[in-house]
């Protein structure tokens, strides 16, 4: 353990507490501290600021995955699928994404793929109205795949640039619901070439270590192209994303910082890293 033995035990304990209380997870925290204490110069070992800076830099390095902006492809429409466990902020995030595309002068269709939860389509309808997007909704209890197929068809026939597919919240442990998700994925592929071009997992920043299982299971069911980390305007730090990025290499594309239409930001690893240590 070389340098680590020379690092003040209380400094290590303090740093470990900061990391763990930000939801980085005990094992990830321990690996980070080991790595950093092996890297830093013998002379810097007793300078808390230097150790902290090295930690922050390592976290930023892990998070700094390629984050392409969402772009309308050559072949319109761009098809975006949004998935995640219950209550994480999928529907609200879709409203924000719709607004972002509208600000770029794009025409957007929203697909009300949650045909299960009470008033889910009504909720998405409000966001469609607020962002000036078109909405395709089905009947209650209708197969979500057929509603979303229809949404892509509407986008194609109306010359829209983007389709964003909302799906019902589901726990990754529910096999039948994960099968339903795989079916949606396949049906979107039948509706348009290469669809869905983006699959975003919405993770609530207040979530603890269970987020890792969520990322693993959703990624195993359908290939994720990005993560949206929501509710970062609260007191939770969302540190669990560090372990997720390290293990699955899925980039965080956006963060949600509120409940309004413009409360969405492109993810910035540097800002996130420094906020972790605030």
């Amino acid at each position, binding site marked *: 353990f070389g340098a680590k033995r020379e690092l003040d035990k209380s400094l290590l304990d303090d740093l470990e*507490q900061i990391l*763990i*209380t*930000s*939801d980085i*997870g*005990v*094992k990830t925290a321990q690996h980070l501290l080991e790595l950093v204490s092996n890297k830093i110069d013998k002379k810097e070992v007793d300078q808390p600021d230097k150790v902290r800076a090295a930690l922050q830099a390592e976290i930023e390095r892990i998070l700094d995955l390629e984050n392409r902006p969402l772009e309308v492809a050559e072949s319109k429409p761009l098809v975006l699928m949004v998935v995640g*466990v*219950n*209550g*994480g*902020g999928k529907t609200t995030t879709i409203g924000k994404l719709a607004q972002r595309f509208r600000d770029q002068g794009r025409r957007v269709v929203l697909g009300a793929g949650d045909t*299960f*939860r*009470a*008033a889910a389509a*009504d*909720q998405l*309808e*409000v*966001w469609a109205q607020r962002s000036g997007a078109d909405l395709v909704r089905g009947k209650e209890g209708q197969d979500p795949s057929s509603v979303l197929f229809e949404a892509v068809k509407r986008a194609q026939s109306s010359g829209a640039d983007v389709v964003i597919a909302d799906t019902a919240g589901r*726990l*990754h*442990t*529910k096999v039948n619901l994960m099968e339903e998700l795989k079916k949606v994925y396949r049906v979107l592929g039948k509706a348009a070439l290469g669809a869905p071009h983006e699959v975003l997992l919405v993770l*609530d920043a*207040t*979530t*603890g*270590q*269970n*987020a890792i*299982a969520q990322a693993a299971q959703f990624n195993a069911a359908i290939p994720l192209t990005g993560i949206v980390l929501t*509710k970062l*305007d*609260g*007191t*939770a*730090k969302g540190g*669990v994303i560090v372990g997720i990025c390290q293990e699955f290499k899925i980039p965080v594309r956006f963060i949600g910082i509120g*409940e309004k239409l413009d409360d969405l930001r492109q993810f910035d690893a540097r800002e996130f890293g420094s906020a972790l240590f605030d």
Partner: protein
Amino acid sequence: TISKGFRNARLKLQGKAEMSEESIDEALRDVRVSLLEGDVEFGVVKNFLGRVKDKALGKVVDVEAKDKEGKKLKLSAGDRFVQICYQELEALMGPVDTSLNISKPVTRIMMVGLQGSGKTTTAGKLAKYLMAQKHRPMLVAADVYRPAAIDQLQVLGAQLAIPVYTESGLMPPDLCERAIQKAKERQCDVVIYDTAGRLTIDDALMHELEEIERRARPDNTFLVCDAMIGQDAVRTAAEFAKRLALHGFILTKLDGDARGGAALSIKEVTGKPIKFLGMGETLDRLEEFRPAGLASRILG
């Protein structure tokens, strides 16, 4: 699924005749990892381990086991350590108190919590639970912000065939106070206030809850908390408990594989009982809290 942390501790300790302080410390390190991975809060873990260590080192023989004929067995020190962990965790999660404060003529229940934790769905579940006990609940749509929140509650009310009170133009404190009279008019004996999700650092919205409390005097205020919440559970629960008269909390989405360590953290920090557990999306999936199941889930 048994987490590596606690399984390591169990394997190392199985049948161990004697436990030196050193081996107790080693076992505690494994338990620590397990609890932190189970989302128990950092400081709460520290206190828990301290208590377990005291008991493990103590000469108090308070741990017993019986064989198949009901004869008392002598436990090895290793098995005793494992027993202490389970018992201490169960004790911390209890005592069990799933009672509801009932008042005449109209019992008031208020649901509070962070965004997306399951308040609206749980309001519906509580209504169904109360109907099974021959009560006549009315749901109150006190979330005037979230798109289609009122619609959502109305759909649940329709599923249960019970009234949902909403009045456009009224802010939640007025609405909740007026609901009591509306309930009497409709021969309902319980009102359940579904409030908007909010951050504890949103002073205006936290003040709104204080206003509802002042005007409607809920007999039961429940913090509805997502079982998958991480270290923030303590910050959030402490703030709600500080500003409101919390009567208990409800942990939702336990039908997933989140370990639910927040339950221990929230109980420790607020001292309030865990009342109910949400075990699914439909209105019949509400259970009264029992410590044993949750304790072993958190420990892993």
